[in-house]
């Protein structure tokens, strides 16, 4: 049913359709509207779930760790500092192979404190073992939470999934959303049947000490499972299309007008909507430009990206996060795909934009396409204010 919904409200209702038995959350802007809406659904008796108001994000992640280990589908959401405070628990959840689903309402990381959107928080957790989706709009946010549970709980996967949605832009933005029907979600997403759980009938020990003889294999196993996600996700999105009618291709990347493109921007999240608009405008003027949207950042769909970009002469990679002291994260990984390959873009350039909520406008995107025609290969910050840099900080 089509409804006019705020992103957070839409996501909360999507999560509710997945029927988590335990929800734990700690408030942080801009995540707050999601747990608020879920607590309301529980209070009104519309969702049968234990809602645990914890004293920190560390405990929010730990509660859903415990409840998932007990065999109950669970959910949490956070942003920024909250995600970083969860950090060690997130690594632990992945290591324990617990299929938790978490929404990251992407926000900049302090200091200086800033509540606005960029993707530094979830990018900083990219090595935690979680799968990561970056959604472009509220409809995708709704749909990818349902896909996330289906993927996480698959018995061949058993890994947690983080759905990353740009804070404010998507959490507080309002769109017409096609909300899935409960019967369709039930058909697409079977009840969670854990491979193992805390059960007095079958008392298992979880969370062993693994020394030098065993630890490395556990990490190798997660690495292999991430490869399997690349094969499984296209099947899941195929099923999703059959049930709900919306097509996300293979769920890994989306190409937009790239077939004959001479200049392509690679990006993740809500900025892809802005880029599509600019691509359409420039195409009307006869410019051969396009967009490659990375939906699944972990596992990183190397082969798909290679195929999509191998014939594109010039590629701009737009990061909304940094790896301070090195090249930007997405840029580094896109570059690495083409090392030693015969076919490769002649130019791959790094652009950083939209940190701490600075608007990425149509003009910002046009500037990136324009600068891609120049000879330089330098990293470039878009919409930087040089007048603020006069005094050394």
């Amino acid at each position, binding site marked *: 049913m089509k409804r006019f919904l705020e992103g957070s409200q839409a996501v909360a209702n999507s999560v509710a359709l997945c029927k988590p038995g335990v929800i734990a959350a700690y408030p942080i802007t801009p995540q707050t509207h999601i747990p608020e809406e879920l607590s309301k659904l529980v209070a009104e008796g519309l969702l049968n779930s234990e809602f645990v108001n914890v004293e920190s994000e560390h405990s929010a992640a730990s509660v859903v760790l415990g409840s998932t*280990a007990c065999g109950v589908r669970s959910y949490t959401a956070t942003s920024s500092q909250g995600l970083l405070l969860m950090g060690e628990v997130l690594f632990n959840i992945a290591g324990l192979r617990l299929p938790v689903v978490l929404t990251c309402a992407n926000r900049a990381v302090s200091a200086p404190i800033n509540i606005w959107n960029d993707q530094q928080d979830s990018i900083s957790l990219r090595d935690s073992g979680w799968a990561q989706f970056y959604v472009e709009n509220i409809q995708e946010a709704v749909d990818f939470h349902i896909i996330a549970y289906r993927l996480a709980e698959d018995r061949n996967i058993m890994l947690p999934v983080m759905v990353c949605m740009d804070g404010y832009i998507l959490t507080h933005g309002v769109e017409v959303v096609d909300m899935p029907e409960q019967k369709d979600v039930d058909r697409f997403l079977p009840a969670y049947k854990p491979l193992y759980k805390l059960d007095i009938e079958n008392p298992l020990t979880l969370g062993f000490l693994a020394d030098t003889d065993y630890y490395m294999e556990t990490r190798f196993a997660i690495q292999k499972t991430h490869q399997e996600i690349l094969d499984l996700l296209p099947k899941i999105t195929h099923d999703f299309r059959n049930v709900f009618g919306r097509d996300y291709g293979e769920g890994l990347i989306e190409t937009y007008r790239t077939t004959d493109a001479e200049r392509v921007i690679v990006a993740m999240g809500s900025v892809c909507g802005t880029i599509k608009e600019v691509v359409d405008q420039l195409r009307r003027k006869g410019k051969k430009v396009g967009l490659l949207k990375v939906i699944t950042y972990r596992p990183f769909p190397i082969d798909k990206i290679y195929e999509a970009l191998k014939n594109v002469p010039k590629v701009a990679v737009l990061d909304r996060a940094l790896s301070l002291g090195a090249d930007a994260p997405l840029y580094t990984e896109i570059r690495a795909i083409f090392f030693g390959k015969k076919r490769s873009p002649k130019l791959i350039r790094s652009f950083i934009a939209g940190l701490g909520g600075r608007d990425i406008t149509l003009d910002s995107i046009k500037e990136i396409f324009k600068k891609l025609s120049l000879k330089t290969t330098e990293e470039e910050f878009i919409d930087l204010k040089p007048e603020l840099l006069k005094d050394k900080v």
Partner: protein
Amino acid sequence: MREDILFASGHTACAGCGQAIAARLVIESAGPNTIIANNTGCLEVFSTKYPESSWGVPWIHSLFENAAAVASGIESALQYLGKKNIQVIAQAGDGGTADIGLQALSGMWERGHNILSICYDNEAYMNTGIQRSSLTPLDSETTTTPVGEKSFGNPTLKKPVAEIALAHGIPYVATASVGFPQDLQKKIKKALSIRGPKYIQIHVPCPLGWRHEPNLTYRIARLAVETGLYPLIEYENGVLSSARKISVVAVEEYLKLQARFKHLLNNEEEIKKIQEIANNNIKRYSLS
């Protein structure tokens, strides 16, 4: 492993480990209808080294400071599943309880989860090599409170965790000692018969960290109680409901068996301070 053994031998604890004895007493009192969440620490390390486990009940270890929150999740899941009869225990050492895990523990108490939290108090970070915790007693020598020209060892008193638990208004708070196993078992059973959050802090000597002979664990544990340094008390619904009477032994008798206090033995002034702590306990809880 025999199915009726809930905490099997063959683990890798040191000889004379008070925590290993207490852990067995706890789970044997609780019985098989129990799920345990365990903080990182000696107990976790010596009982669950892959591929072996001592545990005959469902048991999970996540991190150093989050057993209380993990247990909260387990208890919430059991509520959701309608399995309200299954007991949940969150257990940790003194560092995992009084220091790094206190926030999660406070949250668990405040929210009112039906969980028994256990602190195995061996009075320092033994797993990492005998560093001081906030439950290390006055003048105890640890590797981070060494004795020197300007130091008598740990300069602070034990953090009053039982009182902190009480301040949360939880229905049952007790201290126990591995030197009094029947009292300990009785308290575990009573705690588990009460719905809501419960806290039991168990004094467990550590031969390695306290530097005493392994065969003295039981004797030293009893002396801690008999001197008044570790009163065995019980609070039900916020009211002191029992305090074990003692014969009142001088604190030197307890201190002299442990090399962590050996620098005090010719120091009347410092011993006086420790005797003062015991005297205050004796008076406060009417122990004699």
